[in-house]
């Protein structure tokens, strides 16, 4: 019998994740690795993995620190290109021959970590000047930085406008470097899942420590935070870089899951799934300040995006609706507006779904709501 409730929680989470993974392995076996599994489910899991990391990491700066950053995909682009170029270089240097064996796994791990670190450095360089601004100004300047980053990559002689497929690096990622084909995506699906789990654990540890408390304090009241001895600029910059780190890692996974890289997929205005607005929608939908909310919202938004583009039912809709669906950005904007109107705090608010505390949390929340009602009644009476 474990007395410590924290240890209990860790154990519970580990058990549930293990059960899910075993279930997944069975599921994989049952489908026999057939066409649908290979062609649809596995790529979807890859995509969900980097979307989850992306949303959760943006939540660190948007939800927990309270700083609206619109350049998150810029950091993802840094990570994606860093990982792809590094892996190409490693292959040219003959570190690995084909995409199997320990040597390749080491290169893969190295690329992912390097992608994160490089993105974090860029995040630091952007954060130091940008975080002097607040609110709308910060949003605008980070939007600008995101565009600048993408443009810089565009003009790198070895990355190229056309992306890594046709650029001067010339080799297609699909055949060389990191890019995984259908079969390799199945083989290395565990890499995507493991990286996602590690990232999430790192983020949870961060928010449940002095760092998490400090940045939530800054979000709630920056002046009071500094008057409580919190070095606000340090914690803001650090969190910004930390969050960029994970965007970089998500970028590395993106580089793995795609045959080609093109800067336009990270551009702010692209109609696809990887633009900074889409990530903001995921965070707001899930709930600012709830990592579990971001995870759920990332999956939901992935499904929405997938259905809009591939769903059979779309063909039965009236033509005007289908036309709208061909501009997914419009749909995301509508989703964002609906969420803000009907559930401004997102699905989860700042509540973290916790297996251990599920029932006691519901009780506590009810207590808090009751207290709030009493308080407002009292205020009415006094005022």
């Amino acid at each position, binding site marked *: 019998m474990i007395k410590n409730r924290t240890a209990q929680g860790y154990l519970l989470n580990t058990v549930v994740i293990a059960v899910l993974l075993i279930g997944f392995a069975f599921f994989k076996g049952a489908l026999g690795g057939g066409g649908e599994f290979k062609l649809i489910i596995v790529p979807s899991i890859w995509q969900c993995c980097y979307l989850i990391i992306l949303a959760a990491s943006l939540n660190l700066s948007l939800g927990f620190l309270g700083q609206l950053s619109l350049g998150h995909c810029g950091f993802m682009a840094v990570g994606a290109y860093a990982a792809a170029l590094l892996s190409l270089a490693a292959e040219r240097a003959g570190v690995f021959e084909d995409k199997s064996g320990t040597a390749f796994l080491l290169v893969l791990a190295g690329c992912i970590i390097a992608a994160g670190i490089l993105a974090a450095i860029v995040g630091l360089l952007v954060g130091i000047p940008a975080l002097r601004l607040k609110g709308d100004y910060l949003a605008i300047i980070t939007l600008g930085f995101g565009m600048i980053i993408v443009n810089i990559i565009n003009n790198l002689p070895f990355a190229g406008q056309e992306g890594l497929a046709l650029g001067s690096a010339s080799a297609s990622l699909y055949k060389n470097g990191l890019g995984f084909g259908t079969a390799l995506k199945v083989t290395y699906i565990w890499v995507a899942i493991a990286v996602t789990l590690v990232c999430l654990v790192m983020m949870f540890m*961060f928010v449940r420590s002095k760092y998490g408390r400090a940045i939530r304090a800054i979000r709630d009241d920056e002046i009071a935070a500094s008057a*409580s001895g919190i070095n606000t600029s340090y914690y803001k910059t650090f969190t910004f870089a930390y969050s960029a780190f994970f965007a970089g890692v998500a970028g590395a996974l993106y580089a793995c899951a795609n045959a080609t890289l093109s800067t336009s997929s990270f551009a702010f205005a692209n109609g696809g799934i990887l633009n900074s607005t889409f990530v903001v929608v995921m965070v707001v939908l899930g709930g600012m300040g709830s990592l579990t909310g971001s995870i759920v919202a990332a999956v939901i938004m992935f499904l929405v995006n997938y259905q809009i583009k591939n769903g059979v039912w779309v063909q039965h809709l009236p033509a005007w609706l289908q036309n709208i669906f061909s501009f997914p950005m419009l749909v995301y904007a509508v989703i964002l507006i609906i969420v803000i109107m009907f559930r401004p705090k997102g699905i989860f608010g700042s509540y973290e779904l916790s297996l251990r505390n599920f029932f006691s949390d519901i009780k506590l929340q009810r207590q808090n709501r009751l207290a709030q009602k009493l308080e407002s009644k009292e205020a009415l009476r006094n005022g």
Partner: protein
Amino acid sequence: MAEERIPVLETRKLGITFGGLVAVSDFNIKVFRGELVGLIGPNGAGKTTVFNMLTGVYKPTEGSVLLEGEVLNGKKTHQFVAAGIARTFQNIRLFKQMTVLENVLAAFTKDIKYGMIETLFRTPKFWKTEKELKEKALDLLSIFHLEDKAEYVAANLPYGQQRKLEIARALATDMKLLLLDEPAAGMNPTETTELLECINAIRNRFGIAILLIEHDMSLVMNICERIQVIDYGITIAEGLPEEIAKNPKVIAAYLGQ
């Protein structure tokens, strides 16, 4: 002799102007360890502005702030806190979405020794620190009878308790000087009496210096050892409560309001 001790707080010719407006000028004060000094004055006299200069929120345009003889000018707010000045705000500023306990814990941040490695790997040092801090925070909350509300979201507390929580949070910074900006504002008489007891308890327990802004004259007269009065940013009187109560300038300033 009081004169020979180093005061906890000393200001020399402190002043600030906003554009053309001289908000505070030539402000001199000395507060010694264990003392409770009142800072009073009519609306807009510049009391809060003094506090803002004493915590680095505003940069004074002239003069200097000394804490135990060390000049603090030009430092940032969190460095003022690290040096030992803590404050509360006239219009309560809590970390609204955080729990009561977390509000106090957040104020420990600067003294927490663990770093990212300990955070990520949850080392014994991490757990030990967190456990100790939690106990310390609950202990602080118990001074204000808030320990059983530890898990409440701060915004949900009744007004009087929010004010108390703000003081508890200030105490968590381990300060030498506590600045209280109208702590009894908006409280009913019972809450005010309770608060006074708390302030006295704090002073006896921590042996710190307290500088208190208050509108309620009778309250200030009751608990402060010395009082300084400002009007239009200028010190018009200072001394013992009974002297202040009789001072014609003070009476005029308050009547003229």
